[in-house]
C-alpha cells in the first residue's frame, strides 16, 4: 500500500467552531502565516519519512483550511517536497474555470517533473455558496469540466468548446503536463453516480470521511462498474481517506486525542445550507451521506474506520482491515489533530514504523 499525508493547513489560533462561514475578523495574519509554515514543515517531514504523496485540497471561508486555492500551496510544495508525489485532491471543479484548472495542473506537473496527482472534486456543499453556483447542476458541470481538462491536456491543436455550462472559442494550453498523456486522475465520491462516472472515464476513485462499511460497498460498486466498462481497476485506483494519530503506545495516542481541538465539519456547520442542500439533487443516490457526516465519539470513529489512532502496531492492524475490506491501495491520511511536536512525532512514526509494514499489503 501507499500512503499520503493530507494537511488542510488548519489555522492554529483561536477561531469560532461550528459555524460556516467563519467570520474573517478572527484571522490574525501572523498566525495564518505561522499555520502555513507549520503545514509546510509537516509536508517536508512526510517527504523525508517516506510518505508516497502529500495532499492538499480546496476549502473556503473557514479556519479548517488556509488553502482555498490548493494550487498555490502545491506550487510552493514543489520547491520543498523533493521526492513524494504532490496530490491536489483537489480543486472543486464545478465552481472553477476548467481551462484554468488544466493550466495550473499542467504547470504543477512541469514544475515537479511529473509528480502531480490530479484530483477532480465536486466540493463540499458549502463550496456552492462560496462562488455562488447552483449545487443541483454540480454533477453536470463536473462531468463537462473534466472532459474539457482532459482535452486541454491531450489536444495538439487549438480547439474551441461549445458545452452546456462552458464555452470557449480557442484553447491551447502551455505548458503541457510532463506526464503523458496526462497525470493520474482521481475523483471523489461515495455515491453510485460517482462510481459510474469514474468507471466510464477510466479514472481512480477516492472515499473521504466515510466508514469502512460504506466505502466497502461503494468500492465494490465502482469495481463492478469498471468491469462493465471493460477495464479492471487496481488497488492504486482506490483511495481511502482516514485521519491518523500515532504515538509510541495506544494509551499515549488516545490521551493525545482527548486533548485535541474539536473536529470541524464544513458540511454540518450551517443549518441553512444543510436544509437547502437537502432540497437539491446534490447528494444524488448517496444514501449514506447523512450517517457519514454524523457526529460520533472518538471510539466510534476508530471502530468504523474514520480514524487511525494508536501505536504503530495498532495502526497497522487498522490499515490491514482497510486494505482487505475496501480494496484500497492508497491511504490519504489527514492529521487527526494539530498537537505541535506530538504531531511531528506522529508523522515520523507513521513514516518509519507503519509505512514499511504496509508496503506489501
Amino acid at each position, binding site marked *: 500500500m501507499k500512503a499520503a499525508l493530507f494537511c488542510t493547513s488548519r489555522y492554529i489560533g483561536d477561531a469560532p467552531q461550528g459555524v460556516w462561514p467563519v467570520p474573517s475578523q478572527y484571522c490574525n495574519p501572523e498566525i495564518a502565516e505561522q499555520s502555513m509554515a507549520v503545514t509546510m514543515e509537516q509536508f517536508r517531514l512526510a517527504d523525508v519519512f517516506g510518505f508516497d504523496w502529500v495532499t492538499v485540497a480546496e476549502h473556503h471561508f473557514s479556519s479548517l483550511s488556509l488553502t482555498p486555492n490548493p494550487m498555490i500551496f502545491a506550487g510552493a510544495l514543489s520547491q520543498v517536497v523533493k521526492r513524494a508525489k504532490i496530490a491536489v485532491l483537489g480543486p472543486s471543479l464545478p465552481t472553477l474555470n476548467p481551462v484554468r484548472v488544466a493550466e495550473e495542473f499542467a504547470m504543477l506537473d512541469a514544475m515537479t517533473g511529473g509528480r502531480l496527482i490530479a484530483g477532480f472534486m465536486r466540493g463540499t456543499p458549502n463550496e456552492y455558496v462560496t462562488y455562488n453556483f447552483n449545487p443541483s447542476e454540480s454533477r453536470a458541470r463536473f462531468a*463537462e469540466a473534466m*472532459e474539457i481538462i482532459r*482535452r486541454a491536456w491531450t*489536444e*495538439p*491543436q*487549438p*480547439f*474551441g*468548446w*461549445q*458545452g*452546456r455550462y*462552458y464555452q470557449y*472559442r*480557442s484553447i491551447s494550453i502551455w505548458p503541457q503536463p510532463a506526464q503523458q498523456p496526462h497525470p493520474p486522475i482521481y475523483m471523489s465520491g461515495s455515491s453510485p453516480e460517482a462510481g459510474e462516472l469514474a468507471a466510464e472515464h477510466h479514472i481512480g476513485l477516492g472515499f473521504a470521511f466515510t466508514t469502512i462499511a460504506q466505502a466497502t460497498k461503494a468500492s465494490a460498486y465502482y469495481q463492478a462498474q469498471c468491469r462493465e466498462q471493460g477495464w479492471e481497476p487496481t488497488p492504486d485506483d482506490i483511495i481511502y481517506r482516514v485521519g491518523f494519530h500515532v504515538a509510541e503506545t495506544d494509551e499515549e495516542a488516545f490521551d493525545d486525542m482527548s486533548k485535541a481541538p474539536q473536529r470541524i465539519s464544513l458540511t454540518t456547520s450551517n443549518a441553512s445550507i444543510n436544509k437547502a442542500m437537502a432540497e437539491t439533487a446534490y447528494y444524488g443516490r448517496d444514501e449514506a451521506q447523512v450517517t457519514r457526516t454524523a457526529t460520533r465519539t472518538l471510539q466510534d470513529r476508530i471502530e468504523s474506520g474514520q480514524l487511525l489512532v494508536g501505536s504503530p502496531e495498532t495502526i497497522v492492524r487498522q490499515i490491514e482491515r482497510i486494505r482487505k475490506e475496501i480494496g484500497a491501495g492508497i491511504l490519504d491520511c489527514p492529521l487527526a489533530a494539530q498537537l505541535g511536536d506530538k504531531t511531528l512525532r506522529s508523522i515520523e512514526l507513521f513514516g518509519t514504523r507503519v509505512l514499511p509494514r504496509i508496503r506489501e499489503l
Partner: protein
Amino acid sequence: MANETLGSDTVLWLGEKRAALRDLIAAKFRVIDKAPASDERFGLIAGSDAAAAALALALERPEAATALVLIGPRLIDGGGRVRDEALVARLGGLKLPLLTIFGTKDQAAPPEAGRHYRERLANCNVVFVYDAGAAMADERPEAVAELAIDFLGRGDTFLVRQTSDLLYR
C-alpha cells in the same frame, strides 16, 4: 441580420438539413439550397458528407463565398486518413474563414479528426460540441446554431466574445 460584417444575409446549405437546426439558422439568414448564379455573396454550411462539395465550391468561387461552416465533416478521419487527397491537397488555396464542428461523441466524424484539419489548414477553426454525436443537429441544435450564426456573421473574429456578462445596471 447577423452577418452584416461579412456582407451577406444568405446562407447556402449543402446536404441534409435537420429541422431543429435549420429553423434556428433560418431565423437569422436566408437559407438557400443551390449556389446562386449571379455575383451574390453567400455564407456556406455543410454537414458530414456534403463537406467535400462545400469546400470545392469555396475553392471555385472565392469571390462569392464569405465563410464556411462544416458540421461533422468526414473528409479526414480521426487517424488523419484523407478520403479525397486531390481535394485536400488544394485546400491550401482556401482563403475564406473556415469553422469545423465536431461532436465529442461522434464516431463517424470524431473530435480527433479536428487536429488534422487544423494541421493542414492553419486558419481552420475547430470547435467541439460537448455531448453530441453524429446527430448533433438534433441533439444540441441551439449550441450548433449559436456557433454557426456567430461564425457566419463575424468570421474569424468570432474568437472574441461580444455578448455581455453584465448582471444588472
